[in-house]
């Protein structure tokens, strides 16, 4: 009865639709890391002296650090001298002035990825900053944003045009000493997005950055900084893809968010870095530090992530709830299929009074995937009447995958209210057969179950991204049954 048998653990080839390579001439610095390389990167960008100094301090600190080993992930040692730290598509001048200057091959690349950069095209309500390897190649809708005073540009440009803002906020949420990968990023970061929402402004459109790794043997170290002044609101989206390559590639980004009084930042990620093939060869190592600081009172930072890609994901978008009455949220769907490893979660650090946080984590494991939720909730001494609600659900497809949950709770204030719920469910052959017996094909069954499982998180995503995320999960799980 072989034609009938459905084995949930029989993981067949999955399709990675963003796996093409753009054939474009790039300028890449030789592999290896040294103070000279950092000076070179900084020089290419014409950076001010203070920034170079900051990078060098980070680098010297990094030399004293050890790669962390506490995560529930396994990989061969990374040779940091075998990585190129800067790669940029060749351009006439030092950066495109308008879309007309952008290499058509790049426009085509983003078009193919479903992120057209022409402003009249599909993503009409969304301003996009497109980062290709180490540099930002285009930012759309800038004029429209400037009308209301919103600054949305590449990080490099912000360093040139708004140095006072960058200098004031850079490293205030994730200091250069923070952790091994964040420190490395501080030394060698190349580009990323910068976004500033002035006081009282509700950003009129979604802002988004689309990260693309193209060059081989290159690491991507981008840095994003978002500042929402008093009463401001912004919704920010991030998408990522990379070509299919046999070697592992390193992505070590840093994202810093700052929300002042009554400001709100909603940060959504749909991460689809190349996950490696079904034997576990290749794929991106995604070691990312994302942190938001609710600096002002009654401010709010909300992280929503759908993590389907990467060979290894190591990522804990966190909130420091410093202002009284501030709110932190973390909604996550993480998928580990084939040989993917995901160690992800959040940290909610309650400092101010009456601060609230919500954690909804949905981990899906299939094939030989290992999915770990790791979360810390800390209620500080002064954080009177603070509350946390955590819910960690795991879904297992088949029986060779794993789900692990490590909730850490530190409560230093007795008025805190903590609630934690966890569940593990398994889609076994019995469930799939039940669907089949009612006429529903196993692929559709899996996607119905997975979408049901994730709906609390999907509803936090902006509409068009929720649809994207659903499709992406469907594709990522294709062939995970039958």
């Amino acid at each position, binding site marked *: 009865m072989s034609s009938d048998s459905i084995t949930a653990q029989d993981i067949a080839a999955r399709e990675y639709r963003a796996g093409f390579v753009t054939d474009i001439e790039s300028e890449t610095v030789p592999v290896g890391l040294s103070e000279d390389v950092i000076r070179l990167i900084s020089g290419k960008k014409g950076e001010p002296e203070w920034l170079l100094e900051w990078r060098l301090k980070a680098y010297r600190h990094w030399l004293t650090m050890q790669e962390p080993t506490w995560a529930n992930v396994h990989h061969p040692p990374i040779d940091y001298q075998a990585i190129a730290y800067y790669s940029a598509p060749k351009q006439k001048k030092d950066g495109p002035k308008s879309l007309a200057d952008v290499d058509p091959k790049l426009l085509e690349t983003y078009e193919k990825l479903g992120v057209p950069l022409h402003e009249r095209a599909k993503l009409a309500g969304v301003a996009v900053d497109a980062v290709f390897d180490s540099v930002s190649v285009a930012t759309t809708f800038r004029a429209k944003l400037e009308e209301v005073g919103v600054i949305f540009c590449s990080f490099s440009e912000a360093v040139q045009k708004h140095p006072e803002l960058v200098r004031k906020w850079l490293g205030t949420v994730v200091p250069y000493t923070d952790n091994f990968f964040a420190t490395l990023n501080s030394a060698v970061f190349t580009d990323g997005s910068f976004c500033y929402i002035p006081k009282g402004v509700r950003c009129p459109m979604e802002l988004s950055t689309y990260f693309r790794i193209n060059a081989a043997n290159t690491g991507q170290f981008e840095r994003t900084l978002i500042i929402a002044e008093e009463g401001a609101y912004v919704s920010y989206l991030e998408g990522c893809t990379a070509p299919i390559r046999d070697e592992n590639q390193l992505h070590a980004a840093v994202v810093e968010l700052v929300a002042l009084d009554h400001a709100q930042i909603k940060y959504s990620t749909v991460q689809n870095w190349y996950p490696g093939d079904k034997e576990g060869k290749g794929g991106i190592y995604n070691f990312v530090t994302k942190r938001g600081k609710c600096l002002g009172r009654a401010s709010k930072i909300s992280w929503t992530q759908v993590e389907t890609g990467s060979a290894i994901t190591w990522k804990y978008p966190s909130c420091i709830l410093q202002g009284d009455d501030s709110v932190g949220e973390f909604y996550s769907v993480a998928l580990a299929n084939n040989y993917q490893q995901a160690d992800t979660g959040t940290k909610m650090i309650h400092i101010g009074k009456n601060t609230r946080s919500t954690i909804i984590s949905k981990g899906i494991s299939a094939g030989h995937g290992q999915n770990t939720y790791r979360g810390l909730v800390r209620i500080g001494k002064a954080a009177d009447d603070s509350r946390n609600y955590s819910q960690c659900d795991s879904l297992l497809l088949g029986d060779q995958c794993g789900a692990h949950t490590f909730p850490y709770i530190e409560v230093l204030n007795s008025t805190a209210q903590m609630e934690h719920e966890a569940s593990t469910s398994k889609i076994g052959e019995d469930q799939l057969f039940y669907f*089949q017996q009612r006429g529903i094909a196993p692929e559709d069954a899996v996607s119905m179950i997975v979408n049901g499982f994730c709906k609390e998180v999907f509803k936090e995503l902006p509409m068009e991204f929720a649809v994207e995320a659903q499709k992406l999960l469907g594709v990522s799980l294709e062939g995970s049954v039958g």
Partner: protein
Amino acid sequence: MLEVKDLHASANGREILKGVDLRVKAGEVHAIMGPNGSGKSTLAHVIAGRPGYEVTRGRVLYQGQDLLAMTPEARAREGVFLAFQYPVEIPGVSNVYFLKAALNAIRKHRGQSELDAMDFLSLVKEKAKLVDIDESLVKRAVNEGFSGGEKKRNEIFQMAILDPPLAVLDETDSGLDIDALRIVAGGVNQLRTPERAIVLVTHYQRLLDYIVPDVVHVLLDGRIVKSGDKELARELEARGYEWLEASAAP
């Protein structure tokens, strides 16, 4: 409608069905009785195509088609319905959503258009009344946290919605209280039409008081050892299975 010929099936290397023969025509209701572990559910599963069984000999024809060559979902779309002895829970997927997907998959297979939300909901209302199932159960996740009896009732509800030509009900009466048994049996009786064939697996005469079968079979150690009319069920109720065991020996 259904023709099972010399069916041998095993699971994990152990032979469970040892030559089953069964013919069910449209419009008929057949009851299959037999002691625990005799292979009743196995027969139902093999007909529906559940993984984990190996058919080593024999055939199963449904409306003239070779059922064993088809995927489980293809069998379902062709109209083979199994009401499970132990319905599984599907967390996160609501009953209505599930049923709508099922019905539309079947309709698509028949070349019919998908039912729109309005038509579907009125169908749900109508059929929910038929088996007297609470509307809140319809909205909840499939079988999640349902009581044993509610799960069974939900199986019949699904059958009413999907309207299959062949229904195999595996101990749908077990776990039902007296009122529920009457209601479910009433529901099944309404679905008893000249076009439909029903196979009832049961341990109890009680169900057969409500749904009077055309034929009663006794399955013993993987074989049908005796078939008769409804009187056979009464006889089993009175005498048990021991008197038949001699005929079960190979």
